[in-house]
């Protein structure tokens, strides 16, 4: 039983100590969808032209557009409810690296769906969002442009994977080596504050 003065386990909005429910939900839903995107994209790419590939790619495009929308909302929420401050790290270079890699994550999550949308348009395949509505074609069908956009989309996917690995490694570094609550504050069902080493 919580007393009236006690805070709920996770607040809705971000606090100086941790991420709130909204930011955590955005984070983890986007994690799940991006993982699904890798599976769908790689699986479809390995298939010859078939109904299965058509379905996989249709899902991939619908989910990609969904991710774009969620990231836009997430950035809006971030403006409304600023995230907890960056923790102390051994060197300013790490702070810079953290800031840059977060910016790169957002940039990739926003630009990859747009490149994919351009790729579909250039391939004469209009994008439909789960069969509910169609997106306008951004460019005319163009084989060479489509080829180049596919290469760009794939390269960005590998870059995203690299930055995600860096992101996870950094979270584990904070948790295991620095023993702060950078990881815990993005996890539900944990209490944070016990390991606080935040900047004032």
């Amino acid at each position, binding site marked *: 039983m919580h007393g009236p003065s006690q805070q709920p386990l996770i607040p809705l909005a971000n606090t100086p100590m941790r991420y709130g429910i909204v930011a955590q939900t955005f984070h983890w839903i986007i994690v799940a969808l991006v993982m699904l995107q890798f599976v769908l994209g790689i699986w479809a790419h390995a298939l010859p032209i078939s*109904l*299965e590939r058509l379905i996989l790619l*249709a899902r991939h495009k619908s989910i990609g557009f969904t991710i774009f929308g969620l990231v836009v909302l997430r950035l809006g929420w971030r403006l409304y409810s600023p995230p907890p401050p960056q923790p102390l790290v051994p060197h300013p270079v790490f702070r810079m690296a953290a800031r840059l890699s977060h910016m790169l994550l957002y940039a990739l999550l926003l630009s990859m769906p747009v490149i994919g949308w351009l790729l579909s348009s250039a*391939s004469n*395949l209009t*994008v*439909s969002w789960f069969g509910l509505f169609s997106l306008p074609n951004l460019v005319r069908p163009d084989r060479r442009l489509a080829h180049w956009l596919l290469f760009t989309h794939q390269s960005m996917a590998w870059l995203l994977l690299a930055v995600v690995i860096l992101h996870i490694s950094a979270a584990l570094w904070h948790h295991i080596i620095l023993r702060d609550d950078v990881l815990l504050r993005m996890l539900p069902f944990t209490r944070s504050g016990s390991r606080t080493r935040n900047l004032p």
Partner: protein
Amino acid sequence: MNRLVILCLFGLVAACNAQFAAASCWVPVPALSRIVFSTTQAGAPFQGTFHDYSGLVCMAAGGDSHIRVSVNTASVDTQLPELDTALRGPDFFDTRRWPQALFESEAVRPMGQGRYRVTGKLTLRDVTHEVNVPFTFTPMTDGNARLKGELSLERLDYHIGLGQWADTRWVGNQVELTFSIVVQPAAGK
């Protein structure tokens, strides 16, 4: 002749019929023409074209009108080379066994104001169905004429898209064929 064409442009049927009384025959000029098919993939609109076709359109006031159009199905173009190869394959047009799609009719009915309705036989692969196609026939000032119209069909009626492709949720069954064909007077007809 010119005055006749102008009368036709104004949609005076009698004048046009007078022109067709001589059973004027025309052949398509593919460079100025388009045959487009529209359907859906994954719920989104999808279009392709056929580049290569030939035909003979003879318009006459009496019962002598006849239309015959033959489309080289291997000329299908969706701007996706991989898909075009699949469309030429056995699950779709099977262009090796049936290289031509054919439309034939001897029943062209004038509906007035340059509009006509043709009833004829459309053959895709080895399947033939009777279809009704409304179209307009518009003589142009350069002596050519333009045939425009569209036809709606269900691809599965013609066994287009067999096996896995018979799924109509992901590949639309309804196909609109739109044509805008410039025809020039046939030599020696």
